[in-house]
């Protein structure tokens, strides 16, 4: 078999730009999803019923639709339905964030629910207000407890950015496809793509695990 990695090396800037887009899209999606997801999770835990019902509907809906469908709908259907056209990068950011936020909301809600009720009682007994109990006692422990699940979502988010290729966001997958098609070297190019994703994700998942091991005791009541 004839192996030639030169198309990869010749196009390293082009592929590197794709890697940068992948990282930017991952970080931006994760940040937006974290803010939206945490808000939903906290609102579902402590909010009034008129608020929790539509939020539960949102979470269940997002979890029942493939992320690829959300992405394609956001890019192709949303502009027709609303008249608002989103450039590919922004469509991918919105779709991924909306999707991931639903999972983060569930992680946050489970984290809050896992803190034993005695902790809230002890804080209330000191005279704290409900808001102080949540802010000072429940959430700090919940955040520690949700770290492993949050780490999984982080790696899923990075991987999911690859589907943005279908709406032509120039991230790593899209750039790889372009190079592979032009060079007729799919084996070399996609093997490289695989390796780059692995090298990006492996430290991330291991890093989150290592952080969790160091702080786990702070959430153990």
């Amino acid at each position, binding site marked *: 078999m004839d192996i030639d990695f030169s198309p990869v090396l010749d196009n390293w800037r082009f592929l590197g730009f794709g890697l940068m887009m992948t990282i930017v899209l991952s970080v931006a999606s994760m940040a937006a999803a974290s803010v939206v997801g945490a808000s939903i999770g906290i609102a579902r835990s402590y909010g009034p019923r008129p608020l929790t019902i539509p939020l539960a509907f949102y979470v269940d809906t997002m979890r029942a639709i493939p992320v690829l469908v959300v992405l394609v709908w956001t890019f192709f259907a949303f502009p027709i339905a609303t008249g608002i056209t989103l450039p590919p990068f922004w469509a991918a950011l919105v779709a991924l964030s909306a999707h991931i936020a639903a999972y983060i909301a569930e992680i946050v809600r489970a984290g809050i629910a896992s803190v034993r009720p*005695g*902790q809230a*009682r*002890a*804080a*209330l*007994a*000191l*005279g*704290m*207000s*409900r808001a*102080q109990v949540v802010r*000072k*006692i429940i959430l*700090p*422990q919940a955040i*520690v407890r949700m770290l492993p699940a949050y780490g999984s979502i982080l790696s899923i988010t990075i991987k999911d950015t690859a589907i943005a290729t279908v709406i032509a966001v120039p991230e790593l997958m899209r750039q790889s496809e372009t190079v592979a098609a032009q060079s007729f070297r799919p084996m070399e190019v996609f093997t490289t793509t695989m390796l780059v994703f692995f090298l990006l994700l492996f430290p991330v998942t291991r890093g989150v695990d290592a952080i969790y091991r160091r702080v786990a*005791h*702070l*959430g*153990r*009541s």
Partner: protein
Amino acid sequence: MSAVGGRDAGRKGADRPPIVVYEGVVKRFGAFTALDGVSAQVNRGEVVCLIGPSGSGKSTLLRCTNALEAIDSGRVVFDGAPLPRRESEARHVRRRMGMVFQNFELFPHMTALENVAVGRSTVLSEADGTAKVRARALLAKVGLADKADNYPSTLSGGQQQRVAIARALAMDPEVMLFDEPTSALDPETIGEVLGVMKQLADEGMTMVVVTHEMTFARRVGNWVIVFDHGRIVEQGPPAQVFDAPREVRTREFLSHLGWGGDSG
């Protein structure tokens, strides 16, 4: 409390208005009646011990004392005023009472020092430094000055419970509520916690103690209340309740625990 008036003439603190009065307190959880018309009082400076079988309502009464549980009927009067029903007002009463829990319930994300200081800094809006000075003194009082920077996960059960006592004391409570404070402890660490409680009692702290430690109730308690099925079976000075119980249920409960009198 006319029913107990005459008999209580010699009861500790009877010369002053009681700090807590329970008047026909009823508490239900669904179909289960946890407290079925409980009337009693706690005098200032007294150590009142609540004893009785598990599930008899002792701990529930304790939680009703600082409004962690809302009662269904009757009244709980604290320092002359019925407990407020609204959560925002209940806070102001709760901070005047200290509470110690069976499972310690220390905050795991804070050091021992922070656990003791957090009440003053959060609830009383005291400066962090000032609250910590006070917290350090209280840790020393419970014999844990050297553990100030330890997280709860690195402390033994007995040490955790002593930090929890210091945390409650930090708010300068007018009454301390203990909910089975030694039930989750290894036998060898029970003594250190009871020692701190005895010291508090000697200093004149008003205490309500739910306990299965009959020796503590007999020796440190000034007044003992026996519960069964959400009702008070019998109450009186420990000498009467332990050595000459009037009620059959009290005798049964004590003999079930193997209580054969305080021989030591």
